């Protein structure tokens, strides 16, 4: 499941272990530099190239996972 992998990346980069699928990234203390790290993790671990604008538009584990899935197979 992409959502499980996304949640694991968020937990690691946000230094939290209690993130729900509909928690808001910014409410969790997220900011742009953390986002940059998550962008790198998405490429390295999921093979997904996710623009920062999309992360702003999809600020939850559920919505960004759906976006990544909608992009289909991506090259690592």
């Amino acid at each position, binding site marked *: 499941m992409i959502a499980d992998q996304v949640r694991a990346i968020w937990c690691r*980069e946000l*230094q939290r272990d209690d993130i729900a699928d509909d928690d808001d990234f910014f409410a969790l203390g997220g*900011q742009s*530099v*953390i986002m940059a790290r998550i962008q*790198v993790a998405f490429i390295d671990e999921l093979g997904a*190239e996710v*623009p920062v*604008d999309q992360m702003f538009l999809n600020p939850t584990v559920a919505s960004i996972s759906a976006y990544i899935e909608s992009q289909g197979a991506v090259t690592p």
Partner: protein
Amino acid sequence: MILQGKRVALPPAPVVHKQFESHAHTTPDAVAVVCAGQQVTYAELDARANRFAHFLVARGCGRGAKVGVCLDYSVDMLVAILGTLKAGAAYVPLDPAYPPARLKLLLGQIPDLALIVASPATAAMVESAAAEAVDLQQLSDHLAALPAAAPDTAVTGDDVCYAVFTSGSTGTPKLTAVRHEGWFNLMNWLTLEYGLHSGSHNLVVSAFGFDLSQRALMTPLFCGATQHLMASRNFDAMMAYRMLTQHEIRVVHCASSTLYLLVDWESARGGDALTRLDYILIGGEPLKVERLTDWARRENNTCTVLHQYGVAECTDVATSFDFAGYRPGEHDIAPVGRPAYNTEIHLLDEQLRGVGPGEYGEVYISGASVGAGYLNGSGPESAKFSTVVVDGETRRMYRTGDRGCVNSAGDLVVAGRMDAQVKVRGMRIDPTDIERALGRLDGVREAAVVVSHHVGDGELVAFIVPAGDDLGEQPDENDVRARLLAALPRNMVPARFVSIPRIPLSPHGKVDRAALVDACRNLYTDSATTA
């Protein structure tokens, strides 16, 4: 102490859009802007801007009027900016990434706001404004019927070309106005001093509301080069780096902390797009030298990093230093170098007397770059503008609030804000001094120091980003404290050290001190983190 920039004559009417027009006439088919697959020549951009200028003039929008530009990076953004200048009016960049409540506050602070240029993606954000919003795409039929030649407007170097919002110490953002002469002088200096030319293609990576973005947007058009815009509302290292790789880009202007992110990207993922650039112009905040040293030493790195200093009130850049000349030693701070053309840096004490070489004083800026002041109300901030006589000539002068000195090489060194200095138990302290000392310690990647007033008279709290990627490898607090005590007076050693994954940044990429002060609150409720 005074540093005098080279005196270079400007044209009788140093008007920024005239320089752009000269390229449109001499190299009409050169590419002016590339954005999201669109490519527009100088002739076409000029014609589109002229038509929009006629539209503004017909509505009585000329000298003294303000045009809000609330657009994402796009060809239309440059049409709106150039058209506004050609009409004789001034534009105000409104970053669509701002929260709507912030935009509403800003819109209410713009006097003589005649019009807002928006798009379907931004129109809802400017609904609260008293002025009408127009969409250039919707207007295209109307604009097409207007003349493609420039309207005849009498614009002088003293007219305001743009105004940007800067955070005010009072809590209300200040609308800081820049004059054509200052902006022309800035770009003329960059062009002549650093040999920028029609091949000095540029990529904009900073947020639109930032003062440096105005210079980043216009400089390539000033020297006849191509401007590359990212179709991204937020800084995106992946997209930026890809554009650097795919396009022939030679110059990037950005905040220092944005460069760290690009350098981190290049270091982690490989590539040489940054090291192959001609110039990266950085500034806006104290430079963390350690974030750049490994990259700067890379083999085949032919990129010149210009470490610059300035304030929005004086057209963004006042001085510049070639980072290759940096040698740790006398000052551990990277200097910001020498003044721009037609610009003077004064270092004065509290009695407005010049300080001696090597002595610290407050930085004052005079010359062509001094802006037209604040447009939203007089307020106590206006007292920062005054006049001074230099070589028998009366010059306008701005008091920056920054603390600096001139080193033995004759370069300006800026060592923090006068008002960032804090008092802890009666002692005046500048947190940036402590941050630099922490940054030099092994195991510390970067640090930010604030005063927490959650206990007693307040105490210094250091937020440390460990050098390793794993927060589990936090530097031992007692060890850090011991090493810091060896480097700093005792009263400057923070009471508490908190490891965090990264330093929070404001939307403009500067250290968000308010967020750190806020974070201190948690220290005193969670006993596990106390020292």
